[in-house]
């Protein structure tokens, strides 16, 4: 302004006095700025000197006109904005947003220039007086004058929501405009964005999706519906990324999830013919994984899916294990269980992200229904028996290993593991003695698996069986080596398996009368064995052996017959006589009736293997039936295998017997557990004993509380324990 003169007069405070004395100083200065701001709003700033304007504002602030300047500025900006508002309001229809946008851009540009000019005020006056900085002031004024002006506020919101609705229904809208509009709201502060746009947007979306989902759920199948929901979710996310604040994503997703999924969850999951159960049944991996990801957003969503899946598995499993049809074929029964397990393992792996909680649910469901059938342990053992018998014939060892591993999974579900052990022992004994064990390696690997699962105790006897076989082989060899001097050349070759009592399943010892040739050689063996091992007893288990015999039939055909010991005894009789009645056979062999009948049936009635002829040719064997050698016997094979008694599922009385034996075996185990616990605790109440015992025995079986109670009583009787004298519920350990 008037710098040069005063610089000459006063060096130190050059212009202050002069200016202060000028009463019109403020008005003059303000006029200058006022005009400049108008030019700026007209976008015609090129004629303006920044320095001059800055200096003017600088001097005004320096001379304590800051607050006045601020007031004037506010007023002035408001005037400009009101002008703008008029033009925005006047804009028609679709041009409204564009006009608003244009004005917003102008205002922004002008504002940043004004801020620069008034920088000195921003720097000194505003912080000390706690005012809003110039730029923010401009935004606030824009917000209050334009965006929140009732006529515009409603119109802006309606326009935005209308556009979004149109986009949702498939139209293409100007996303750039949308983006800049929401950007404007965000620039005005997150509260403006939230209050003026986001909240109503979420409300409108909620009602939109509630309506749409209602419509879909009436006409769509579950899979279809979920596809729709997934599409909507990704659309909304995409929309947010295109023209909204990132934070809105979470909120709109929550809205869609709530309206489309959470509100209809039960109905969707349980939908008949297309819901979760249907997807499971039909292995619809894609639909399932979609359901999993979608309901992952819903609180309790996965729990619901899991529970429905669990109850479905339990139901199907239950019908599987209790179906009397299935019980006929144990191998098929177990195979079905394995298939079921594979199926769900696959589903969980592929569709449910291998979710741990789902795997647990699967396991507990299997555990639940497998134990519904008390014969499961037996059947699983039979299944293993079947696999180990056929083993190498059907598949290579690797495949067998995987099958065994799978079986071990089923085994883990069993509560009565001791029952399984019992059966496994029986089946293993049959396999080993009849030489049907297909592969020694597989047998042993199965043993190792059982051992890692249940510990040494579980398998020690099973291992003992293998050791017995090995030593027997050595003994037999030793017998023949030492017997060269003895006259054994013409006698039949025997192979003796010496079984340690206790390691092997106890069988009722049914001795029969062996043919004299056999007796001779077996007596020699007995002498040899007892000679090397002092103080042992040797009994012949004739019901478990087998024999190869050469037979020449009347028609001249020669065959080698592979038969059981009993069958051998019967056939040998026909060396001396042509025909024998059942009663005669029974008398001379002394084989128990049931076994004899079975053995005769397999000799005379099995098609293609009729070594004997029976009169009359009926299915059942009566006492008076007579048998003779079938002279017309023919077979394509030289070696003929006569039906051996294959391990079969037990008949009912046998089952009962095994069950009783198992119960009997459990008693000492329960007692041992009680004593172990009481020895360390000294004093314990009844309920704690119950839980502790159950916990200790869990890996082998689930003890029945009544049985535990009986055992405790028995221990009290035998003075291991006593009841506390004052508190009858407490037990004390004695000794």
């Amino acid at each position, binding site marked *: 302004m008037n*710098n040069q003169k005063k610089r000459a007069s006063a060096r*130190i405070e050059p212009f202050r006095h002069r200016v202060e004395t000028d009463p019109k100083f403020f008005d003059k200065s303000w006029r200058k700025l006022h005009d400049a701001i108008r030019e700026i709003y007209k*976008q015609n700033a090129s004629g303006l000197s*920044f320095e001059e304007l800055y200096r003017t504002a600088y001097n005004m602030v320096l001379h304590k006109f800051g607050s006045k300047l601020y007031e004037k500025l506010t007023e002035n900006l408001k005037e400009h904005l009101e002008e703008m508002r008029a033009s925005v309001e006047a804009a028609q229809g679709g041009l409204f947003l564009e006009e608003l946008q244009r004005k917003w851009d102008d205002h922004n540009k002008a504002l940043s220039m004004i801020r*620069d000019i008034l920088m000195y005020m921003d720097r000194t006056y505003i912080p000390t007086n706690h005012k809003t900085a110039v730029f923010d002031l401009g935004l606030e004024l824009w917000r209050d004058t334009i965006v929140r002006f009732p006529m515009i506020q409603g119109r802006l919101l309606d326009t935005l929501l209308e556009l979004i609705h149109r986009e949702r229904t498939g139209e293409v809208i100007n996303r750039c405009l949308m983006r800049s509009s929401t950007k404007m709201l965000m620039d005005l502060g997150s509260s403006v964005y939230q209050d003026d746009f986001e909240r109503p947007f979420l409300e409108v979306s909620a009602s939109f999706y509630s309506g749409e989902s209602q419509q879909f759920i009436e006409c769509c199948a579950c899979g279809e519906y979920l596809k729709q929901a997934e599409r909507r979710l990704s659309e909304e996310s995409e929309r947010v990324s295109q023209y909204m604040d990132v934070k809105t994503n979470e909120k709109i997703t929550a809205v869609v999830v709530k309206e489309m999924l959470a509100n209809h969850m039960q109905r969707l999951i349980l939908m008949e013919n297309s819901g979760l159960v249907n997807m499971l049944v039909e292995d619809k991996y894609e639909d399932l994984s979609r359901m999993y990801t979608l309901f992952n957003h819903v609180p309790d969503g996965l729990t619901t899916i899991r529970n429905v899946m669990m109850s479905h598995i339990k139901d199907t499993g239950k019908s599987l294990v209790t179906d009397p049809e299935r019980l006929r074929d144990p191998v098929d029964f177990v195979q079905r269980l394995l298939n079921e397990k594979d199926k769900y393992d696959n589903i969980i792996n592929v569709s449910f992200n291998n979710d741990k909680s789902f795997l647990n649910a699967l396991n507990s469901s299997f555990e639940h229904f497998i134990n519904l059938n008390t014969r499961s342990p037996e059947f699983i053992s039979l299944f293993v028996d079947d696999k180990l018998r056929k083993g190498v014939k059907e598949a290579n060892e690797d495949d067998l290993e995987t099958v065994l591993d799978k079986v071990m999974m089923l085994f883990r579900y069993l509560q009565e593991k001791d029952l399984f052990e019992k059966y496994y022992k029986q089946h293993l004994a049959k396999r080993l003695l009849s030489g049907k064990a297909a592969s020694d390696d597989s047998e042993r690997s199965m043993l190792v698996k059982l051992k890692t699962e249940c510990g040494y105790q579980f398998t020690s006897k099973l291992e003992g069986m293998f050791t017995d076989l090995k030593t027997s082989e050595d003994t037999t060899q030793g017998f023949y080596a030492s017997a060269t001097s003895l006259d054994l050349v013409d006698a039949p070759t025997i192979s003796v398996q010496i079984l340690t009592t206790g390691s092997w399943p106890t069988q009722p010892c049914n001795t029969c009368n062996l043919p004299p040739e056999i007796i001779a050689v077996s007596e020699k063996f007995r002498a040899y064995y007892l000679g090397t091992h002092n103080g042992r007893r040797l009994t012949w288990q004739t019901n478990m052996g087998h024999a190869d015999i050469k037979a020449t039939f009347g028609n001249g055909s020669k065959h080698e017959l592979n038969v059981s010991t009993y069958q051998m005894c019967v056939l040998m009789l026909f060396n001396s006589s042509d025909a024998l009645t059942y009663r005669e056979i029974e008398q001379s062999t002394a084989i128990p009736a049931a076994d004899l009948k079975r053995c005769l049936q397999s000799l005379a009635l099995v098609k293609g293997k009729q070594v004997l002829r029976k009169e009359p040719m009926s299915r059942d064997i009566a006492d008076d039936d007579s048998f003779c050698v079938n002279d017309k016997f023919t077979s394509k094979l030289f070696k003929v295998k006569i039906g051996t008694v294959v391990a079969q599922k037990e008949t009912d009385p046998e089952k009962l017997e095994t069950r009783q034996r198992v119960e009997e075996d459990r008693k000492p185990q329960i007692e041992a557990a009680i004593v172990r616990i009481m020895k360390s605790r000294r004093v314990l109440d009844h309920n704690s004993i119950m839980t502790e015992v159950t916990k200790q025995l869990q890996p082998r079986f689930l003890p029945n509380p009544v049985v535990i109670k009986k055992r405790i009583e028995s221990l009290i009787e035998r003075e291991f324990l006593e009841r506390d004298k004052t508190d009858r519920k407490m037990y004390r350990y004695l000794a």
Partner: protein
Amino acid sequence: MLGKGDHHQPQEEEEDTGGVVKLISAEGFEFVIDKKAAMVSNTLRNMLTSPGGFSETRQGEVRFPEIPTHILEKICQYFYWSLHYSSGKETAEFPIEPEITLELMMAANYLDT
């Protein structure tokens, strides 16, 4: 460039490139300095970067009718000194004669330096 600001050189060659800016003192002396150096002052920085297209931005020259030549010269020296030493790696005294201190400080306030 530093040399140019060092002495009173009334007329520097007029270059309107982006690299330099001309500062004109109250008495009409012109100082051509690097834009980079001018940016040490926040006021100048705003002036030169403001989006509106003020006359200063277009012409690349700024008039300071209230800053006498010897102060403006000192200021230009300071710009280069600051540019060079403000990183703090090496230090050097910036000499200020006592008699110009007050005026210099007022100018510094004005220029937000």
